[in-house]
């Protein structure tokens, strides 16, 4: 029987079956968030620490809602105010958490590999909520769920990830998850923001956004951080918008309707224009909704609950 194992660290490590398992499990959980009383007792008594070494609003809130809607007891630890700022090492943090006998840790960290580092040192389940520029598996899963909701299947569909792939953990999770489920994946952006060996990951590379739009069934538009301009990767945000921005004018020339995704937070007028973000083909808010369901599914599966009983679990109050 397919299971997720102890931790969720990276979509690169999951099989197509495991990814589908999470997507299928998320379905029933979506409905819970639509109820008046958005709570099931599935994780009652479980303790979860949300350990955020890097600022995050939406991912942290999304995890917290998922945990609370499943009746888990949660503690949020952010860098400010924790012993991390006093110089406690990641390994000491891990040992302390272990000593407190918690069940799960959701970790966001600035260093690639930090989630794995923690997972190797504690018995609790570890969920990677973004490690450096490596992966953000729950974001990848919710993006894929959003597309599957629209299309029914990913097989043969073409998804282009646009923008700062070099520094994007979202991009890597999307590349692995989508290709494993049979989609074709491309990336598009200035070469200075693409890893030089990106094509070796099995993706097509577009230098021009116009070509990507002509090719794609969906665009996943990444956030372009201001620091990238200061770091000398691109000359200006203004020029970025002019050359790579996803605009209505460009989309209108597309040979087919293109689904528009964005992991947020958006820089309107930089990587994406408002009339695209708020337009008829945008599924950006569906992604946010699906995020809670995906995280509920991941928590549920990692807690060792049987996949087939997700429907039953949602019924129990």
């Amino acid at each position, binding site marked *: 029987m397919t299971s997720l194992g102890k931790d969720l660290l990276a979509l690169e490590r999951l099989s197509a079956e495991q990814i589908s398992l999470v997507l299928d499990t998320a379905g029933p959980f979506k409905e819970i968030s639509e109820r008046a009383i958005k709570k099931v007792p599935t994780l009652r008594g479980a303790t979860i620490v949300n350990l955020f070494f890097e600022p995050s609003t939406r991912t942290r809130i999304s995890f917290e809602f998922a945990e609370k809607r499943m009746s888990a007891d949660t503690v949020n630890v952010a860098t400010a105010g924790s012993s991390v700022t006093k110089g406690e090492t990641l390994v000491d943090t891990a040992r302390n958490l272990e000593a407190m006998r918690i069940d799960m840790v959701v970790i966001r960290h600035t260093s690639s*590999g930090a989630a794995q580092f923690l997972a190797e040192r504690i018995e609790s389940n570890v969920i990677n909520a973004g490690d450096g520029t490596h992966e953000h598996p729950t974001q990848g899963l919710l993006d894929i769920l959003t597309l599957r909701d629209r299309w029914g299947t990913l097989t043969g569909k073409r998804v282009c990830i646009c923008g700062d792939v070099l520094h994007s953990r979202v991009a890597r999770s999307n590349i692995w998850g989508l290709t494993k489920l049979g989609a074709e994946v491309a990336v598009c952006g200035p070469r200075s923001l693409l890893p030089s*060996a990106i094509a*070796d990951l099995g993706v097509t590379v577009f230098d021009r956004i116009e070509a990507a739009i002509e090719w794609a069934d969906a665009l996943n538009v990444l956030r372009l951080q201001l620091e990238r301009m200061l770091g000398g990767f691109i000359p200006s945000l203004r020029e970025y918008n002019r050359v790579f921005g996803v605009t209505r004018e460009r989309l209108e020339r597309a040979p087919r309707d293109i689904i528009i995704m964005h992991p947020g937070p958006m820089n309107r007028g930089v990587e994406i224009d408002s009339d695209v973000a708020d337009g008829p083909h945008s599924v950006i808010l569906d992604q946010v909704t699906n995020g809670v369901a995906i995280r509920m599914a991941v928590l549920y599966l990692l807690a060792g609950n049987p996949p087939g009983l997700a429907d039953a679990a949602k019924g129990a109050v």
Partner: protein
Amino acid sequence: MSPRDVLLTGGRLLDPSSGLDAVGDLLLSGGKIEAVGGRVGRPDGAEVVDCAGLVVAPGLVDVHCHLREPGREDVETIATGARAAAAGGFTAVCAMPNTDPVTDNQAAVGFVLEQGRAARAARVHPIGAISIGQAGERLAEFGEMVGAGAVAVSDDGKPVVSSQLMRTALEYARTFDIPVADHCEDPTLAAGGAMNEGVVSARMGLRGIPSEAEEIMAIRDILLARRTGGHVHLCHMSTKGSVELIRWGKERGIRVTAEACPHHLSLTEEAVEGYDTHAKMNPPLRTAADVEALRDAVRDGTIDLLATDHAPHHNDEKQRAFADAPNGIVGLETALAVNLTWLVKPGIIGLGTLVERMSCAPARIFRLPGGTLRRGAVADVTVFDAGSEWNVDPASFLTKGRNTPYRGMTLTGRARYTVVGGTLVFRAG
């Protein structure tokens, strides 16, 4: 007081510097090599060591290690480093000057030399800094440092960023006939990098260090050596491109010598998988094609010598997320075995070439005593077993460092006796 005579009997005497490869005895007396080959009668009071089945070679010389003293005595001292060196079969090591304070003046050089002597293990030859404080600005006093015992200059740990400073160093070093050893790294290309740039770094989301960061500096140094007539020694070469550039320089008679490290000849970037910080070093582990090119270069002599780049770190510092961990691994106690396992055993080089690259060439190129079994030379000798297998257990190391990617691996070959100046300083337990 001269040490007791030592008679090494019945070993395979292997000395490329004199073309010697024959089973026989070696007599060490008064700190010198007294008799080589054939059967030697046992002098009164001599210690006799049976070397049957073992290789008796000129002592191994490591021109590149970090002994951390002064400054980081918690991770290594000159004494622990010198003892680890002897245990690894090294009779002499060159200590890089990136200590705290930096070894950039005659007093600091004298301190390293004194600590080395006091250790009574492998010889410790200080390398002085190229620039004061290794700040890359003002030339350090090469003349006084050489007078105090420095054998080369280097800002290793950091590149010499200024081409003008490098040019001046190569020119100025000519008076003292010492190599200028450079850590080839373009700091702007390598900035923030944690591993080789390539498909693995793309997958792992780690900032990569491109090969060109090394190669651009390598060719700059080669061109400056051509301009100045100085002797440039390129440290820890790691890429196929660097090999091609060195070959280009040598074909033109430019005074360039180069070293490669055991880890770059045995491991690839794949070792970083799983974010293993024991596989994090600078230059980083590269691709299989780079390893292949380096092995060829060791065979044909484009890479003149093998050096360890022994770099102990505290375990606390390696127990971090990958990008936050320091670069470097220990190497003194595994170098011989790694080279035997990955170069000699698969037939890439013979034992003679191994001895040439680990003993004769480093001694010759850095103008050090040793590196030969000729009669009258200093009695620095390494006796090793080229065939026995052993399991790497870092807990048994004499270095204070435990940071090795070879932990738990089975390696072939090990030093059995190390003789420095006629004194047995190491005997395998």
